[in-house]
C-alpha cells in the first residue's frame, strides 16, 4: 500500500470510528497525523496499524472502502474488530486520545483547552455537609 493510499484509507477508517455528529468534527482529518506519529514512534503499533489497514482493505473485498455506504463501512470495521481485537482496540484507543486532546474538541466539551497549570480550576467554596449523622453513631473502630 502506498503512503498516500495508507493515509487515505486510515482517514476513512477514522471517520467511521468518530463520525461528524452534533457539531463535532469527524476524526479523519484531525486525528490522522496523531495516529501516524504514534505509529512512527512504535514499531509495535506500526505493525498493528498495518495489520488493521490490510484487514480493512481485504474485508472491503477489493472495493474502495471510502466509497462504501456508512452501514457497509461500519460492517467492515466490525468484521476487522472481531478478527483482530487487540490491534483494532489499540487503533480506537489512539484515535480517542488524539481526538479528545484537540483544543477545538475540548472547547466543544465546554472546557478551556490548553495547559491545566497554572490556570487550575475554581471550586466554589461551600460548607461541608452535616456530618452529625455519621458522628452520632459513636466510635466505629475496634479498640485493639
Amino acid at each position, binding site marked *: 500500500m502506498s503512503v498516500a493510499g495508507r493515509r487515505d484509507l486510515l482517514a476513512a477508517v477514522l471517520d467511521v470510528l468518530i463520525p461528524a455528529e452534533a457539531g463535532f468534527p469527524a476524526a479523519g482529518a484531525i486525528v490522522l497525523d496523531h495516529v501516524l506519529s504514534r505509529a512512527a514512534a512504535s514499531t509495535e503499533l506500526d505493525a498493528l496499524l498495518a495489520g488493521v489497514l490490510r484487514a480493512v482493505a481485504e474485508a472491503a473485498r477489493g472495493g474502495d472502502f471510502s466509497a462504501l455506504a456508512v452501514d457497509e463501512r461500519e460492517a467492515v470495521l466490525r468484521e476487522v474488530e472481531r478478527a483482530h481485537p487487540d490491534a483494532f482496540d489499540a487503533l480506537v484507543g489512539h484515535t480517542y486520545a488524539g481526538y479528545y486532546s484537540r483544543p477545538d474538541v475540548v472547547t466543544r466539551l465546554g472546557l478551556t483547552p490548553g495547559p*491545566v497549570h*497554572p490556570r487550575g480550576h475554581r471550586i466554589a467554596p461551600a460548607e461541608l455537609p452535616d456530618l452529625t449523622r455519621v458522628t452520632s453513631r459513636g466510635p466505629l*473502630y475496634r479498640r485493639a
Partner: protein
Amino acid sequence: MVDSGDVLIVGAGASGAAVAWRLASAGIGVLCLEQGDWVDARSYPHWQADWELHRAANWSPEPNVRRLAQDYPINDTGSPIAPLMYNAVGGSTIHWSAHFPRFRPSDFRVRSLDDVADDWPIDYATLEPYFDLNDRMMGVAGVVGDPAYPPKSPRQTPPIPLDTLGATIARGFDRLGWHWWPSDSAILTRDYDGRRACINCGPCDLGCPTGAKASTDVTYWPKALALGARLETRARVREITLGPDGLADGVLYHDRDGRLRERKARAVVLAANGIGTPRLLLNSRSSRFPHGLGNREGLVGRHLMFHPYAMVRGEFAEPLGGHRGPIGCAIVGQEFYETDRSRGFVRGYSFQVARGLSPISSANGGLNGDRVPWGRGHRHAYDQRFDRTLTVAIIGEDLPEAHNRVDLDPELADAHGIPAPRVTYTLSENSRRMLAHGVDRAREVLEAAGARAVAVNPLLRAGGWHLMGTARMGTDPRRSVIDPEGRCHDVPNLYVVDGSVMPTCGGVNPTSTIQAVALYIADGMIRRRA
C-alpha cells in the same frame, strides 16, 4: 571511590525521605542513593496543552509502559495486578493521588481479633505520635472527628472541597446510613510550611507542579538536605556488601555514568518499596547468604500484598464537575472495614471516591477500561459519560500468603544487567468475596445517590499502587525478615523501612502508615546510637 557515610539509605521516596530527615535532625550523617533524579516542576505535563496524552506514555504509573532510563523492568505476567511505582526523588509520591488514611487499631491485631495472618509487633498507640509527626511534615487536608478512628490531632488545612461530585455521593451514603468522611489528603488547601495551596487543576497522578501535593521531594527532602543529609541521584544500587563480621558495610552501585562504585556505611537502610527491596536483598548473595541477604528462611519476597481494587463507576444525569480538583480525593467510606464473618469473608475494605474522568479518560473508560462505543452514536454515548461520572473504588485488605511473591527473573535484567524482579500473585478466595461484596455495595450507594447507570471493573489490573509485605516484620526470625525495630534478623545493622515490612496491609492506602513506621524505626536508630 570508597567513602564512609554514617548511614546509607537506598531510595528517596516516601519512607527513605522520612528516615533521612529524622536521622539528619539528630545529627547523624546520611547519604541516600536514588536511582531516579529530581523532577523539575516545570517538566510536569500540566504545563502542556496535550497533558492528558502523557498519562499513557512517559507519565504512566507502570514502569513497564513508561520505560524511562531510571526504571527497571518487572516480569508481571504471573500476576493479575500490575505493580506501579515511580523512580525519582520523591519516589511514588510523585504520581500518587495523596489519599492519606491511616491504618486503624485493629489492622495491627488481625491474629488476636480475627484469627488470621499475624499481629504486628507494634501497635497503633506506638505509632500514633509518628502519624502526627508525619502529618505535620507532609501537610494534611481534612477534618477531625471521624468516628472510624481514634481522635486525631488537628489537620493542617481544611479538607479538599467536596464540590458537586462529592456532595452527590455523600447523599447516597447518607440515604443508606453508611459511614463516610471527607478524605484525609496529603494535599494543601491553604498555604502551609512554605508550600502553596492546591489550585484544583486535577491530574495529581501526573505529579504536582504547584507543590501542594505532598511528594517527599517538596516535603521531607528540602528539610533533610538543609540539615546536612546528602542525596546522590541516578545511583542504582546493585548489592549490599558485608564485612568480615557479617554486618552490612555498604553497597555496590552504578553511578549516573554507569560506573560501578562502592560506598561504605555504618548501617544500611532499604527504602526501595515492596518490590525493589526484596529484589536488592535477593541480588545480594554471598557465601554467607547464598540465597540472598536476610533470606536464611526463604522469606524474602514472599507474602506480597497489593490491595486488590475493584472499580464501580456511576453515571449521573447532571454534570458533576469531576474534572475539577484532586483526582483521587473526595470521600472515604469505611462501613465494611471491620470483620463480619456473615459477609462471607474476613477483614474488610474501604471505599475511596475519586473524581470524574478527563476528556481522553472518558473516551477510553479510565480505570474501568470500557471505551465509549465507536461509530454512529459515539457522540451521544460520550456525552452521557463525560463530566457525568464518579468512581467508587473498593480497596480490599489483602491477606499475606507465602505463594504470592517477588523473586528474580532468570532472564530479565535492567539496563545495568542487574536481574529484574518477577511477580507471582494469585487473588485469594477471601479477596474475591470481599471485592464482590464491595462491588454490590458500591452499586447500592451509587444508585442511592441517583446514578442512572453503573459500570463495574471487578479487578483492576493497573492497580498495584501498594507494594507490601515482602520483608515482613516480626519477633520470630523463622517467620519474619526484620525485627520489631526494623533490623534484619540476620544482619542487625541492615534496616528495612518501606512497605515491605508490613505483616498485614489493612484496607486503606498505606503511605501514611509506611511513613509513620519509618519514623518509628528511625527513632530507634537514634536511641541506640545515643
